[in-house]
């Protein structure tokens, strides 16, 4: 169980700030999902926690400043699932997931039997049993995404960062993966910070949402408070309908712009003969 706290985070790319003094906290064992339009700075915030970008401000996990940690120690605290991972085509799935054990393997040593077992176990949990020897290049988009998640879970870090974890998955696998993350939260007390485009899924699985736009936090709170037609309309520029499901969960349904019926647009096929 680890609480994550971001204070005053300003991330700059080429001295251009993409986030502006953002404060954010994820309670221990909680799940906070960042939502917001493209370019809002969601990925940048995740990358700041992962230690991949330079930033002002302080990020702590359980009070420990991440900046002071060496990469190896950091990898044992934080696991990052990138949006577009680099996947060498010829690398076998099991070897790829084994990379997640890097922080446990002695620098000049090799993976142990325990490492292999943990990696294989993650493959089972992500429905990749039988894929051990398959080269990554032969996997479908969904299978690849599950492989990346398996690699991150193999790190056994208490904090999990998910950057668009379900974008390439079909609706069944989307549910499966997110349910698994929920399960792991319950089992291991995982703390999750994610960025997702799918607002409905974000609302269903995360404890609270943080709406980010132009590098600033515009709204934060439980799904009911953040997923409102007004806020979504204002920050996404989208016309949506917010619907409540039977179980109380919230669904964000896009509303199509009204079609003007124009008779001139109707093609009279019956009048034309075959050429």
């Amino acid at each position: 169980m680890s609480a994550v706290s971001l204070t005053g985070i300003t991330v700059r790319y080429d001295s251009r700030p993409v986030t502006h003094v953002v404060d954010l906290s994820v309670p221990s064992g909680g799940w906070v999902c960042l939502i917001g339009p493209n370019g809002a700075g969601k990925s940048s915030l995740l990358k700041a926690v992962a230690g991949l970008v330079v930033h002002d401000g302080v990020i702590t996990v359980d009070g420990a400043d991440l900046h002071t940690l060496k990469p190896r120690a950091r990898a044992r605290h934080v696991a990052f699932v990138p949006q577009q991972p680099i996947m060498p085509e010829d690398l076998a799935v099991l070897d790829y997931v084994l990379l997640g054990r890097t922080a446990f393997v002695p620098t000049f040593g090799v993976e142990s039997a325990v490492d292999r077992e943990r990696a294989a176990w993650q493959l089972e949990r992500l429905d990749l049993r039988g894929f051990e020897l398959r080269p990554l290049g032969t996997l479908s988009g969904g299978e690849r995404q599950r492989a990346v998640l398996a690699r991150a879970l193999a790190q056994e870090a208490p904090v999990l960062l998910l950057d668009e974890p379900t974008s390439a998955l079909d609706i069944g696998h989307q549910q499966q993966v997110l349910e698994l993350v929920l399960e792991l939260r319950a089992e291991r007390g995982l703390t999750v910070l994610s960025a997702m485009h799918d607002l409905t899924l974000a609302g269903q699985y995360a404890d609270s949402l943080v709406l980010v736009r132009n590098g600033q936090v515009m709204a934060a709170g439980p799904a009911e408070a953040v997923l409102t037609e007004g806020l979504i309309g204002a920050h996404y520029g989208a016309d949506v309908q917010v619907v409540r499901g039977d179980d109380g969960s919230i669904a964000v349904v896009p509303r199509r712009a009204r079609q003007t019926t124009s008779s001139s647009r109707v093609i009279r096929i019956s009048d034309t003969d075959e050429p």
Partner: protein
Amino acid sequence: MAVGALPSAATARGTRRARAAHGSTRWTIAAAGALVGAVVLGVLVGPAGLPVRGVLLDIVGRVPFVHVHSGLTTSEQSLLWQIRVPRVVLGALVGWMLAAGGAAYQGVFRNPLADPYLLGVAAGAGLGATIAIVYGPTTSGWTVDPLPLFAFVGAIGAVALTYAVGRTADRGRTAVTLVLAGVAVAAFLTAVQTYVQERHTDVLREVYSWILGQLTTSGWHGVVLVLPYVAVSSVVLLAHRRLLDVLRVGEDEAATLGVSTRRVRVTVVAAATLGTAAVVSVSGLIGFVGIIVPHTVRLVAGASYRRVLPLSMLLGAAFLVAVDVIARSLSSPAEIPIGVVTAFFGAPFFVLVLRTRRTVS
């Protein structure tokens, strides 16, 4: 290239381990065998026409506690042990290091065209050698031939300059910056070298022949000179095999997985550069080996650095020894510069490997 899925995780794990171990040993034995074969060929073949049986007996006779009379004359023995064997050993060391350096650079920069020449080793050594030939004192005035020293200093200096330039650009954080800095430094040093050559056209031939590469050596001096560098470099590179494998997913992801990417990059580059500079200072700029040998190994044995590094070392050594045999036999007793022969025979060989692998997969 699809491999069929196996029934269960346990079976897969067991089979995989067995297959990996078996595969690794198989390839290592094959490569070691190729090296031994090349070395034997190298000591047996030569313009002096030493008797095969005599040579083999003499070599066996060097083994402690084995007393065999080889029948070679003293001058023949001297030729064998002061000229031919050192040359073969030097060829093996040079080939070993060039291939290892190439494989290591390809791992660090994740670029199939990377090799130590990329960061300026070639340009730096070339400039150093040119300066030694043009401005250096004649060898009779020194106890040590200044040429290798100048070439070595030039090579190391060029890489240091590349790093310095890379740091000012981007704090040296990314690999791409270093590569670009290397291109710039190499271009600059080559320009300086060309200028010096133009001013002293009388030594043009000497410089050119040095650049084309040579394994001529009198006695064991060359071997003794490079052996410590190659040994240290090899140990460091082999120790970093697994880390190079982790780097395959890119520096960012490798960092999140727990690798100190900058430290790995600097260490591997330093070790590969040191070893390469040492062999280049003695043997000139033999190209092609650092890129083609590791790629051949990848095509045949897979891209994991746990195999690519050691196999490249063995195969690189075997390749250069074999090529040297050709270089000194083809227009015997004259010698073709070894840099010419490596490319001439290596390129078609590589095309052959490319074609066969394509039909297999």
